[in-house]
C-alpha cells in the first residue's frame, strides 16, 4: 500500500542530511511522534482541538459557475480556507505544538513564506502559552506585510531574514541554525512535508485529515470517488494532505500544480518537480532547483507560499513512480483563476490555491464533462489583497497613491 510509507525514505528520497547536533532532537521527535500517534489521549486531544478550534471537518463546496469554465467537469472544493487562521497550515501546527508540549519544550520556532504557517504557529503558541519566533525572508515580509502584523499581534517575534535570496529557503536555514543552538527548550515547527525525517511523514500525517474527510464527503455527495484530486505544490503539505487518502485508489488521478512564475521555461519560476533534479536541500534528498555545481537556484513566484526551490521527498517519489503528475502553472494563469473563482462563486482563494484552481480549469477540459475534480482550496486570499490590488489595478490611482503616502 502506497499509504503505508513511514520514511525515513520514500524510494531514494528523504533521509536525514543535517548536522550531527540535530540528530538527537530528530530521534527524540521521532520517538515522541510514534508514541503519540498511537496514544488515544493524544489523538482525542487533537481531534477535540480540530472540532472546537480549527473548525473541522471543513466543508466541501461544489462550484458549478466556476466549473462552466472547465469543460463542464464537476468541480468540488475542499474548503481548508475556512479553517481558523485561514489555511490548512493549522492542522499540522496544532499536532506539532501538542507534541512539543509533550516533549517539555516551551519555545516554538518556525519558518514562513506567505506567512500562513507563521500565523498558524504564532496562533498555537498563543493558545499553549509558548514563546514563538518566526523566521521570514525579508522579501516576504514586504509582500506579506499584513501577516507580519498578524503574527506580532499574536505575540510572536518575526525575524526578517536578510541572507541569500531573502525568501523561504533562507528562512528555513535560519530556523535550522536557531534550532541547533536552542534545541534543549525549542521545537522547530517545520511547516511543510520537507526537511529531515521525521518531518515529511509527521507533517503529512497531521494533514491527511484533509483527504480522509474529503474522500468521504465526495463519496457522499456524488456516490463515487472523484476522477482527479488536485492541489498546489510548493513544499507540498496541502497536496500530501489531500493526496494521501487516495494514494491506493488507482482510478483516482492525482495532480500537483507547481508555480511556474513567469513560465517554467524562463529563469523565473518555482517549478521544482518540472525543472529540477534530485539533490539535498534542508535535510532531505528530493528534487530541487540547482545549478550544475549543486548551488540552490533562487525560485520565483507571485505566490510567496510556493516560492521554494525544493519539495517534499514523498512528492519526488510519487512523481518518479508515476502515481502523481506535476504540472506548472504561471503567475498569470493563477491570478486569472483567482479572479474567476472570486467572480463566479464569491470565494477569494489564496494565490497559492489559485494555482490548483488554474490546474483544474485545464484538467476539466481534458477530462471532459463526466469527470469530477476535487480541488484542495488550501487557503483564503485575504492576505493577498495587496498583491491582487496591484496586479489587477483594483485601487484608483489617486487612492492608491494616497495609501502609499500614508
Amino acid at each position, binding site marked *: 500500500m502506497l499509504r503505508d510509507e513511514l520514511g525515513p525514505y520514500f524510494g531514494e528520497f528523504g533521509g*536525514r542530511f543535517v548536522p*550531527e*547536533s540535530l540528530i*538527537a532532537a530528530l530521534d527524540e521527535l521521532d520517538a515522541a511522534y510514534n508514541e503519540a500517534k498511537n496514544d488515544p489521549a493524544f489523538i482525542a486531544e487533537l481531534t477535540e482541538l480540530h472540532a472546537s478550534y480549527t473548525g473541522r471537518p471543513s466543508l466541501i463546496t461544489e462550484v458549478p459557475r466556476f466549473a462552466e469554465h472547465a469543460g463542464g467537469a464537476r468541480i468540488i472544493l475542499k474548503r481548508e480556507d475556512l479553517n481558523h487562521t485561514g489555511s490548512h497550515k493549522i492542522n499540522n501546527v496544532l499536532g506539532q505544538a501538542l507534541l512539543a508540549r509533550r516533549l517539555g519544550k516551551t519555545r516554538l520556532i518556525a519558518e514562513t513564506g506567505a506567512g500562513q504557517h507563521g500565523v498558524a504557529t504564532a496562533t498555537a503558541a498563543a493558545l499553549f502559552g509558548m514563546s514563538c519566533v518566526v523566521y521570514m525572508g525579508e522579501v516576504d515580509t514586504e509582500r506579506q506585510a499584513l501577516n507580519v502584523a498578524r503574527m506580532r499581534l499574536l505575540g510572536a517575534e518575526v525575524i526578517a531574514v536578510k541572507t541569500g535570496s531573502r525568501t523561504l529557503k533562507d528562512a528555513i536555514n535560519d530556523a535550522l541554525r536557531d534550532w*541547533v*543552538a536552542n534545541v534543549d527548550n525549542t521545537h522547530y515547527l517545520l511547516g511543510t512535508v520537507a526537511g529531515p525525517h521525521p518531518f515529511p511523514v509527521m507533517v503529512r500525517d497531521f494533514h491527511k485529515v484533509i483527504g480522509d474527510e474529503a474522500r468521504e464527503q465526495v463519496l457522499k455527495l456524488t456516490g463515487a470517488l472523484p476522477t482527479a484530486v488536485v492541489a498546489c505544490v510548493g513544499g507540498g503539505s496541502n497536496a500530501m494532505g489531500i493526496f494521501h487518502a487516495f494514494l491506493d485508489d488507482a482510478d483516482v488521478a492525482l495532480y500537483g500544480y507547481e508555480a511556474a512564475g513567469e513560465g517554467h521555461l524562463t529563469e523565473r519560476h518555482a517549478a521544482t518537480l518540472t525543472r529540477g533534479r534530485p539533490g539535498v536541500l*534542508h535535510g532531505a534528498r528530493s528534487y530541487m532547483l540547482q545549478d550544475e555545481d549543486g548551488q540552490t537556484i533562487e525560485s520565483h513566484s507571485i505566490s510567496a507560499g510556493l516560492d521554494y526551490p525544493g519539495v517534499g521527498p514523498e512528492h519526488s517519489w510519487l512523481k518518479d513512480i508515476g502515481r502523481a503528475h506535476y504540472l506548472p502553472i504561471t503567475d498569470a494563469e493563477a491570478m486569472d483563476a483567482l479572479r474567476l473563482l472570486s467572480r463566479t462563486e464569491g470565494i477569494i482563494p489564496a494565490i497559492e490555491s489559485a494555482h490548483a484552481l488554474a490546474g483544474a480549469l485545464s484538467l476539466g477540459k481534458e477530462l471532459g464533462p463526466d469527470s469530477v475534480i476535487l480541488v484542495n482550496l488550501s487557503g483564503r486570499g485575504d492576505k493577498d489583497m495587496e498583491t491582487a490590488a496591484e496586479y489587477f489595478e483594483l485601487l484608483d490611482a489617486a487612492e492608491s497613491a494616497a495609501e502609499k503616502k500614508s
Partner: protein
Amino acid sequence: MSAVEDTIARANRERSGALIGYLPVGYPTIADSIEAAVALAENGVDVIELGLPYSDPVMDGPAIQRATQTALANGFRLQDGFAAVAEITSRVSAPVLLMSYWNPIMQFGVDRFADELAAAGGAGIITPDLVSDEASEWIAASERTGLDRVFLAAPSSSDARLVRAVEASTGFVYAVSTMGITGARSDVDSAAKTLVARLRNAGSTSACVGLGISTPDQVREVLSYADGAIVGSVFVSALASGGVSAVAETAASLSTGTLA
C-alpha cells in the same frame, strides 16, 4: 596513518597539540584565498581546512556566510576549489582538507569528486551535513582513494553515535564545542571538554574541537584536553578587515596557544 592524523599526532608530541585553520575558497578572490591559506601554514597552522562556498550553509554563522556568499556572487565554481587545493599543496607541506556541504559533492559525483581531490593533493573532506548513517557512498570512495573523512560529533550525540563517529572518521573526529553554529565566542563551552572525554571513551585517539575558538588562550585551553583546535571565523574576519597580512598575524598569534 593518514597525513592529517600523523600531523596532529606530531603536533601533540612536539607541542601541546595541533592548530587547524579554516578559510573559504574564493574569498575575497580565488587568488587571495590561496595566499591566505598559504599564510596560515607559514604561521603555525598545522592543517588547513578549505571551505567550499555553498548557497545554503546551515552550520555557518554570519562571518562565514558573508564570505561564502561573496565568493559565490563572484562566480566561484567547484573546479576552482580543486585548483586552489593543488596550488596550496604545491607551496606548503600542511595537509589540506576540504569542508563541504553534501549537495555539491553529490552533484559533482562522489567518486569523481574524490578522484579530483586526491589528484589535487587534497587530504580529505569534512562533511558538516553528512552523518555517517547516510555516507556509504562517500565511505567507499574515501577507502578507494585514501582520503580522510571527518565526521562531526556533538554534545547531544548519544554514546552509540559517538562510537559510530569515531569508527567512521579518519584523520580526526570534529568535536563540536557547543550546540550552535560557527562564529567567535567569548567562552568556549565546557561541553567541549566533556565531549572529548566521551570521545576518548568511544575509542578516539584524534579528537579536535571546533566552533567558537578565537584567542590563543582558548586554543591553549582546548589543547589541554583535545588533540587539535579548529579556528575559522576569526581568520575570515581578519581577512575581511586586514587582508592576507592580518590572517598571517592572527595565525601567528593563535599558534602561540599550541606551545606548552
